[in-house]
């Protein structure tokens, strides 16, 4: 039986009060946006609270919204209660100048590489991570390629010599 979303909302709202910024149930998975500094508290609470027990981290990734000043970098967690078969999406946003987020790798061992990947591509600094270094890109790289300031090549550009490698 999936957990009632009202129950999840009520539990989190009473526990964290104004740490909860917004609820969104318009998409496929119930989604909550919380303040970035309480991310680990929320994840731990969701893990330990018996009536919620979101103990499986499905996915962790980042997103970049350059126009949202002060909240440019987002980190998105998908947690799953396997017994009750309920999913929950948690979002936090941090400024691009100071993208500090507490690591979840102490709670979920699987978060280790997912956080390294998010650091690699978005430059999120996971405080307390045991081994925060690049995982997919080369170590010498000095930028974070999935941020929006690195556009892909314009497919209609004509200033290139296409004789050899034309498309």
């Amino acid at each position, binding site marked *: 039986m999936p957990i009632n979303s009202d129950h999840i909302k009520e539990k989190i709202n009473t526990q964290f009060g104004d740490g909860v910024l917004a609820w969104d149930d318009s998409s496929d*998975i119930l989604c909550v946006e919380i303040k970035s500094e309480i991310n680990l508290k929320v994840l731990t609470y969701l893990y330990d609270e018996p009536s919620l027990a979101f103990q499986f981290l499905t996915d962790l990734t980042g997103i970049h919204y350059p126009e949202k000043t002060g909240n440019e970098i987002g980190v998105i967690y*998908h947690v799953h209660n396997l017994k009750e078969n309920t999913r929950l999406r948690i979002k936090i946003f941090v400024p691009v100048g100071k993208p500090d987020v507490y690591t979840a790798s102490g709670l979920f*061992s699987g978060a280790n590489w997912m956080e390294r990947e998010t650091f690699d591509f978005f430059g999120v600094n996971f405080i307390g991570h045991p081994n925060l270094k690049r995982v997919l890109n080369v170590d010498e790289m000095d930028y974070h390629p999935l941020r929006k300031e690195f556009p892909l090549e314009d497919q209609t550009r004509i200033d290139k010599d296409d004789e050899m490698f034309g498309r």
Partner: protein
Amino acid sequence: MPEQANIVLPEGSLEKQTTRLNLGPTHPATHGVFQNILEMDGERIIKAESTVGYIHRAFEKLAERRPLYQITTLTDRLNYCSAPLNNMGWHMTCEKLLGVKTPKRVDYLRVIIMELSRISDHLICNSIVGVDTGAYTGFLYVMQYRELIYEIYEEVCGSRLTTNMGRIGGFERNFTNTAFEKLEKFLEEFPKVWKEFENLFMRNRIFIERTKGTGAISAERALNYSFTGPNLRAAGIDYDVRVHAPYSSYEDFDFIIPVGTTGDNYDRFMVRGEEVWQSLGIIRQAYEKVQSFKGKDAEIYHADAPEYYLPAKSDVYTKMEALIYHFKIVMGETEIPAGEVYHSIEGANGELGFYLVSDGGRSPYRLHFRRPCFIYYQAYEEIVRDTMLSDAIITLSSLNLIAGEMDA
């Protein structure tokens, strides 16, 4: 003067009793491009450090500039042993965002193809485990029968390994009679072969002694490491996306989820082996259901979604509307609705998830692949600690690591 006095050893080497061994990036035993730096005490592994990313191709970045159909070809190259699974997972994600409802017949046809590719993936994984324990025959033997699966793919979509199969809403064309004949041939011949293959291994003493008790991970650790798929089920957790969140009408089928108990290499082998039998059962049921469609219903192979489904070529030449849609789809001019979806399917390696965020443009604002390989490979360091090197090689292959999926 003792005769060894002229040998100059590097400084500190007498105090340091361990050796550093580089396994990979390209090594026949790793079956893919990734590196393991092992700290060895004799043949015992004390510490392992994994390095990945040798074939990283920035799919998530590329997807931010591509219309939906051009992303299908990127998904092919994730887990290339079961490309149709990735294709269909991606198409179903798009359908979820676009609100396209697929007819039952399409779902069943998809199930046939998805289960065939699950078989082809497990078949490679299990036979490679055999190779790494020193039995090459099984691999060469079942490889012939993967060919039968590839012939079915070829008949359905025209290509073999990186299939780019299907469209949003269904298939590009109806299955031909030849495709069904080939499927029947496969269903006829393959079970005997798989039985024979299992006979070679299941109660083979050498194989059991090489695999039993090696590379084990407990259920708690596997869950904590976000394991999914056969590797999690081998540890004893019956989590299967096909049952927990049925997609493509999987709720209409009758099958069981095999689970192991110890999570070691032998259990992983057995779980994959049993899943092949279950997949065969599902294919038979799906084929029967497909056969039950008669007359006009048997002609349905795609959903009615003209904005996203490429029209037939004959219509493009004769009908104005079809021409417009064709142009818009091919040039990627169709704007997709804003929203975000997470859709996951039971890939051959576990939960293959697509997290798609759209801002209403022509391509995704952000697309993230949840790649099961990448997530469970981080546990390798823990699994192989304090085991023998030769066991670590089998663990590597029985986890079924596909470098393409790991690096995206």
